[in-house]
């Protein structure tokens, strides 16, 4: 149990739980969607935390020194996709909420 409570991993999992709580417990539809976006952000934080290497450079190659220590670029690429798809899902959810409220008011 030597690195049980590293703060970065712990906070991303705590965000996971809090986002899940907002989705399940709130009675308002917009708040549920915002909880879903927090939930997605927590997964991104976790992946970017995994990719980090101490005392390393961001993954942009410096042409003068070709053998430096870089952070792992593969999770960055996967999370780029996840962010953009997340905003599309959010927009679609919002337009569905507008239609639902319109049906409820009639």
């Amino acid at each position, binding site marked *: *149990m030597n*690195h*049980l409570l*590293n*703060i970065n*991993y*712990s*906070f991303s999992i*705590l*965000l*996971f*739980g*809090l986002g*899940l*709580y*907002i989705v*399940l417990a709130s*009675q*308002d539809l*917009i*708040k549920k969607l*915002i909880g879903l976006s*927090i939930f997605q952000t927590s997964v*991104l934080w976790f992946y970017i*935390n995994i*990719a*980090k*290497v*101490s*005392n390393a*450079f*961001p*993954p*942009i*190659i410096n042409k003068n020194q070709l053998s430096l220590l*870089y*952070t*792992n*670029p*593969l999770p*960055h*690429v996967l*999370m*780029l*996709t996840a*962010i953009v*798809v*997340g*905003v*599309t*899902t*959010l*927009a*679609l959810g*919002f*337009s*569905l*909420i*507008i*239609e639902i409220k319109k049906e409820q008011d009639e």
Partner: protein
Amino acid sequence: MILESLLNYVVILVSSITISALILSNNIMKIILLNSVFSTLAVIMYLILDAPDVAITEGCVGVLSSIFSIFTLNKIYKNDFKIADKFNPTLFMIIMTITLLLLFTTQGLPEFGQTKPDNYYLNNSYNEIGITSIVTSILASYRGYDTMLETLVIMLGSLAVLLIKPQIKLFSIPIKDLIAEKFVSFIFALLLLFAFYLQFHGEISPGGGFQAGTIIAASFILYGIVFGNHNLIKFVSLPKLIVLSVAGIGIYLITGLISILRGKSLLNYNILSNNSLIGQSIGINAVEIGIGISVAASMLIIYLSLSDESST
């Protein structure tokens, strides 16, 4: 280094305060604003964790997500922002138990910052593709299929938003303020210049098609908010936007099909030119232009659909 780890703790503390305020809040406007504050804190966190590409994408996309939330809020809650929401302790306890169990699984992970990335991309990307940004080389060249289908998902999302609400009157009330109009006239060109900078510098620095597309959309959205949608339609009408969002994916696909016509597999940029490095550069630039056009058009379609003030 000390500053970075101190900033790490500060960002985690401030974001935990933000999220707690968001959970306990009853005012929907406050919740949406706290969400955009949290998105900004996430950008700072990604910069601390040495992920500049992810940071700039989250920054650009957080803008659009806040704009869409506020337009939805405007349509549903006219003047009264109070929602009926109570804190539910039993559910909170159950979810915290599950979270604590999940926390114990981080024991199996390697220690923070001590992973040794020795993968293929870090060693071979500069020799095979020749651009200095490894993330763009993976995104546009090594994993080009994923990016093509992701752009397709964004286009389909915008089409689905149109299908949910087919009768769009494209009418919105402009802001009649002299300062706003002068400011937008000035900043519009600068925003487009920045978007083109991000688009064409995607090879050598953080940037690329997605970020540029969202900033182009944001500049047109700013114009539409201040001057009214009926003025925006004179430049970018809805049929043109639908054609543009499909044409972006078309550019992507045609770049891939050219390599089939020359006898190799789909999206093989090496044979677009005699020198394989120049071929990769041509392929990546063409593909990023396609992504930028498609993302900008899709985000504008979603904005036009959500900001429609007709009373039907």
